[in-house]
């Protein structure tokens, strides 16, 4: 095992520890609201391109989705990092895990954000 910069490590993990809790409180509203609306009130059988276009015609809902995207996915990916750190004990391997998760998080978040800003495009 290589030397670990404990000072730096601890402060990042402390921030992450707090971020998991505060983002969680925010996600109660964002995620519960979204799931109750989409799964329970509307239901998958009424979701189609027109439905999404209708919702995203309202910038308020676009911002809601953007916050959900930013907070839920960052929280979830950091959660995955936490779980994996219980299994991966070598600093070198953990660094590879962190880089891989960071790349997945960045690519998927950018895709989601592009869709929210780009909106629904007409079928060719």
């Amino acid at each position, binding site marked *: 095992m290589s030397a670990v910069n404990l000072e730096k490590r601890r402060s990042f993990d402390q921030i992450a520890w707090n971020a998991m809790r505060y983002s969680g409180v925010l996600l109660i509203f964002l995620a519960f609201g979204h799931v109750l609306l989409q799964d329970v009130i509307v239901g998958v059988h009424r979701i189609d391109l027109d439905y999404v276009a209708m919702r995203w015609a309202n910038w308020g809902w676009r911002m809601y989705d953007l916050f959900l995207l930013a907070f839920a996915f960052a929280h979830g990916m950091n959660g995955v990092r936490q779980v994996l750190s219980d299994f991966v004990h070598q600093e070198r391997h953990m660094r590879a895990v962190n880089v891989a998760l960071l790349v997945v998080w960045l690519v998927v978040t950018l895709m989601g954000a592009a869709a929210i800003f780009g909106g629904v495009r007409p079928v*060719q």
Partner: protein
Amino acid sequence: MSRLKTALGGYAGYQGREGHLAFLLHRVTGLGTVLFLTIHIVDTALVYFRPELYMDAVALYRSTLFGIGEVFLVFCVFYHGINGLRIAAFDLFLKKNWQIQTARSSVRWTLGLTLLLWLPATVIMVRNLLIHNFGLFGG
């Protein structure tokens, strides 16, 4: 691999009653939700990148298999959220509630509250599934 065995063996063999159950469920439901969410962000992004494919993704969500999965997903989100709120509240403002008896009863409250939200949601989702996929209730 022995690390994996040690960690998984600990998950299974540790006898921590309510706290142990709460931890395992929190982990499994969190991982389940983030797995779904990753796929869900990409399939929603189809509306912009490949709109002609979006309905194929939605068709999967409308299948009976996914309809059942959806019921579990909603459980995952509800349980993980309520339990997460319990963890956050105790860690940030109510540290003394980690005392063993209070912590145990709070897990039972968490499970109760989860069921209270989840059961009515399940009735509605299953009803939708029966209407659209099985033609029941005049569907």
